[in-house]
């Protein structure tokens, strides 16, 4: 029972990360129709930038986190402007290939600047609690509650502000949004900035717990893709729910069946579900 609860706790923590990362991806994929396959690598760069500000510059954890979010926002805007916007009216698959090019670039960048060995941020919140036999560290609790806070803030932004509603307008009808005077390019850039910024938050939350390495973005990015496709392109509740479900499946599958094969569950589920329903569970007909 204690093992079960411990696994559920870990699953919820992983799920929180997956939810945030998938949320960022679903914004650009569902709303702008851009298969940003380099999203996991933006996450990785976000983690490294937090590391940079903490260890090389010597800032406090929260300050480094904010700067990392800002830096990734800028990186997201640059990526939208110089990689994806020129490919707007070319076949979809070209954008996918461009994404692979940018992920190779970002991975090489991390390798060149920070080296291939794992790096670790000193844990800012090392306190540990024991509640009902479950061991939980303050940093892990922070991941869980931070994710809830971020999701709530993003929801309020999308529903209550004008800037947020323009994103939704573009998602519903690109031409219609243009006709009502919305600058679609600016909305694209903003969406990319939010998407990359949320990835930086997720990375900064998790890096005090796990090692940073240049290759950590690839698998996470693929998992985020799995979640977005299963949860429905552009569906924010789908991404959040899918993130938590995947986290729980992995933690329980890894704890009870096989730790070495825990990544197989996620990818196997995607292959299985897309074979049965080629446009995803809640998928719209794609164009």
């Amino acid at each position, binding site marked *: 029972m204690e093992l079960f609860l411990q696994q559920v706790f870990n699953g919820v923590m992983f799920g929180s990360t997956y939810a945030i990362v998938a949320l960022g991806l679903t914004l650009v994929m569902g709303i702008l129709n851009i298969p940003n396959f380099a999203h996991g690598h933006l996450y990785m760069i976000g983690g490294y930038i937090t590391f940079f500000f903490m260890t090389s510059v010597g800032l406090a954890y929260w300050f480094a986190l904010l700067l990392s979010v800002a830096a990734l926002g800028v990186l997201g805007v640059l990526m939208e402007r110089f990689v994806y916007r020129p490919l707007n009216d070319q076949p979809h*698959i070209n954008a996918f*290939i461009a994404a692979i090019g*940018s992920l190779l670039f970002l991975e*090489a960048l991390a390798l060149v600047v920070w080296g291939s060995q794992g790096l670790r941020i000193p844990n800012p919140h090392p306190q540990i609690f024991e509640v009902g036999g479950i061991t939980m560290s303050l940093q892990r609790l922070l991941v869980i509650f931070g994710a809830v806070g971020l999701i709530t803030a993003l929801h309020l932004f999308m529903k209550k502000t004008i800037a947020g509603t323009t994103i939704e307008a573009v998602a519903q009808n690109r031409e219609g949004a243009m006709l009502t005077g919305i600058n679609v390019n600016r909305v694209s850039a903003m969406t990319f900035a939010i998407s990359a910024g949320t990835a930086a938050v997720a990375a900064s939350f998790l890096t005090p717990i796990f090692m940073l390495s240049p290759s950590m973005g*690839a*698998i996470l990015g693929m998992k985020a893709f799995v979640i977005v496709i299963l949860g429905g392109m552009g569906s924010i509740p789908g991404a959040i729910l899918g993130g938590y479900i995947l986290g729980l499946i992995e933690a329980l599958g890894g704890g009870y069946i096989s730790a*070495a*094969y825990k990544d197989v569950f996620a990818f196997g589920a995607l292959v299985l579900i897309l074979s049965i329903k080629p446009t995803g569970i809640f998928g719209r007909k794609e164009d």
Partner: protein
Amino acid sequence: MFTKPIHTKLLYLVILAAALFLPLYVPDPYIFQIVTMSLLFAIATSGMNLIIGITGQASLAHGAFFGIGAYGVAIMTKAGITFWLALPASALIAAFAGLLVGLPTLRTRGSYFAITTLCFGVILWIVAGNWIDLTGGHNGIFGIPRPSAIPVPFYGEIPLYSQAAMYFLALGFLLLTLFALYRLVYSIFGLSLMAVRNNEPLADSVGVNTFVTKLVSFVIANFIAGLAGGLYACIIGAVSPSAAGYMMTFNFLIFLILGGMATLPGPVVGAFAIPVIMEFLQFMGDYRMLFFGALLVVVIIYFPQGFVGGLRLLNQKVVARRQRKISESGHASR
């Protein structure tokens, strides 16, 4: 129907002659090994070109099928089966795996197909690293025997121990693959492949069975990938999970895009030029991938036809200008 001008034919002949006499003028065994590997990558990338370039379905599991071929030959030859049986058997296993994977995944389209095949590739990579009894886990399999000598009547045997023999083995299979692909692409079936790429609903409505067409293309592409993988195992003499990894797929993709999608020479040019450039850029170390990642983005935005496609476009422009000049001077003299 598709006759080429005489200078193109001559160029191909010169390249073939250069390839045949290559062991004479490349004495450095290290460079020679790179060229031999390029031959393998050219085979695999040509297979990838069939499914991505000609049929328009972005399969990102190509490295996985390459890995199936490599592990197939490694496991079978270690078990005592002769290489000449293990190689076709491994390629057939890769093709059969392609059939099993293609049946469900080819129902998806566009990025969905890309991500599904990529997921399959990652699953296979994880399995290759963890199924220790069969694949040797992360260490892989070492000491794969070289192929046995080929008996030739009235002559004796051709031994296959030397590096040059390995080179000619790979070159032979590359020429065979290119010939088969040439016959395939310039056939009625090849036309239906391109029809599926250009407009799938239209191809469907004029009577092309799009699903079967895509499936056959996928299976053939994976057969070729398995073949290249099998040759890789015997030439390198060892396989590890990285032979089946997604980085292998991405490498093939770089060769394909930079060389020129949807052209037959493109993948070969890419598979030769990129590893050689990589070698020359050795001094750049890890900065090389920084360069190639950016190059991939620039090429896909501004030159989506790649090197060979760009060259053809240039050639067409030159020909068009020459014809215009001829017609203008014709008008002037009249």
